[in-house]
């Protein structure tokens, strides 16, 4: 559904690439999470994929449409929820949705809600009920809470039934309950419509539900794969051991077929379930025993930290 090939962007007057030769594919219907710290290039990538920014080099396509040459076709099939709210505070909730629908050519122009086609009114009501904001549709945007505004943006972005929905840090600035309900709604919507979801976030826990995670930092892919694969890539569990007689310990580790590295202390690569058995098998008196078992979060911070150094 989404195909990137060596995508690169360097802003004018910048001394490094904001997006640096990124290539990957996203399958139709997939929940894809682009993870990275602030300034990693996530928003730049979304801007390029949604055709509001030209790449410096490389290509990308969405559903077979080149994002540069067929920008208009791409815009028609993608929906986007921006990092910064993109609602017009001077309009009512419904007017925000209506103007979107007309701009996407879904319905002819009409100056009031009452004059819009019945099909439009049904669609708006349907989506708004799904997200639980039907009663507030005719109210001014100003009266909406942050969470409700985000929901309205989702209603709006789904009006033209996009094949790909881009969400650029959609939960930034939301409190925990709003964040949770938002995710529940998104999951429901994804299940019902089969829309491909492309999410950027710097919260690891939001990405853990994804089919595929891509971690980028400083414009480059740091890690890519299923959450499990990322976990096994990133999370290195080991036990650090040392002894006064290092020679004997090294021989013993080799005999026990315990994979290790380092010249002392030694990193013995065993997962947490086998740590106890491994330690029990070692006869050499140990001077150091230290387990290293980072969470996915620690591993993410570690890898991101390493790249930034």
């Amino acid at each position: 559904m989404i195909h990137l090939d060596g995508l690169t962007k360097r802003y004018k007057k910048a001394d490094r690439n904001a997006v640096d030769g990124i290539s990957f594919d996203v399958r139709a219907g997939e929940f894809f999470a682009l993870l990275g710290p602030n300034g990693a290039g996530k928003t730049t990538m979304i801007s390029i994929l949604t055709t509001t920014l030209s790449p410096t080099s490389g290509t990308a396509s969405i559903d077979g449409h080149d994002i540069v040459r067929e920008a208009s076709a791409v815009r028609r099939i993608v929906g986007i929820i921006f990092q910064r709210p993109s609602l017009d505070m001077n309009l009512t909730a419904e007017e925000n949705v209506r103007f979107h629908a007309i701009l996407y050519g879904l319905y002819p122009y009409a100056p009031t809600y009452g004059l819009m086609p019945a099909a439009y009114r049904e669609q708006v009501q349907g989506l708004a009920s799904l997200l639980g904001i039907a009663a507030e549709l005719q109210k001014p945007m100003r009266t909406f809470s942050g969470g409700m505004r985000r929901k309205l943006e989702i209603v709006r972005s789904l009006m033209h039934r996009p094949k790909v929905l881009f969400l650029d840090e959609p939960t930034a600035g939301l409190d925990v309950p709003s964040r949770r309900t938002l995710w529940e709604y998104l999951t429901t919507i994804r299940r019902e419509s089969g829309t491909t979801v492309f999410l950027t976030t710097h919260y690891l826990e939001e990405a853990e539900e994804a089919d595929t995670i891509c971690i980028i930092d400083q414009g480059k892919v740091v890690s890519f794969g299923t959450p499990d694969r990322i976990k096994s890539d990133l999370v290195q569990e080991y036990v650090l051991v040392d002894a006064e007689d290092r020679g004997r310990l090294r021989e013993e580790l080799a005999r026990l077929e315990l994979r290790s590295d380092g010249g002392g202390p030694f990193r013995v690569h065993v997962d947490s379930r086998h740590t106890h058995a491994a330690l029990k098998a070692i006869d050499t008196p140990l001077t150091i025993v230290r387990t290293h078992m980072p969470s996915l979060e620690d591993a993410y911070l570690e890898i991101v930290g390493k790249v930034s150094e």
Partner: protein
Amino acid sequence: MSEVAAVLTLAHRDLIKLLRDRARIVSDFAFPLIFIGILGTSLQSGFGSTTGINLLHFVFTGVLAQTIWQSTALGVISLLMDREQDFSQEIFVSPISRYSIIFGKILGESLVAFPQFIAILAFGLILGVPFTLEKIVALIPAALIIAVYGGAFGVLVLSRLENQRQANQIFPFVMLPQFFLAGIFNPIQNLPWFLDILSKIAPMRYAVDLMRDVYYAGGPNVPIFDLPTNLAIIGVEFLVFIVVGTAGFVRAERNR
């Protein structure tokens, strides 16, 4: 068809935004009324008898043109701020053409300028600026031309700027001098040569002169150029501004 609907939608949005923004309505109307009511009236009572023309009428026609022209120009430039904030992010990712965005914005801002035109006209009547019905009818197309011309100038400026901060910074250099170079409050017939060149470059000048062509038709010889000359200059500049500005805007939009 959907492009026409998009243009109408964008224009509709601008008008709603104006009508629901009370603070903006007050500030949009306050300045012209201060200029005409205080500056125009005091100039007339102080110097009116020595100059031979009614300075209240002179300032009134100048401010009328300036308000409309500047309102659409700044309105179009506000696309920059919009882009950074609200619904315009949405407009820029929608499948409508960039040209529709520009035309929708110019149309919308012209609609926004129209209530100001009516208000200033009403204020002029209250202050005793003489009007005939024919004159009011003749001023309407002039106001529309000035509005669209201001919008085209806005597009040109917009295409050269990257953000609202820049727009705020250049405002004193692009708009303010034109107040005086266009002869809104002051005569520009006998300027020193260097000011005369600057005055002839200032687009607002032709908007002001066009308004005076229509207002003073058959009366005192206040305008500098005649109506056809002003229309011709405005026509040519409009085309240049809109073509160069739109092309620049569309290019700049994606090559950041």
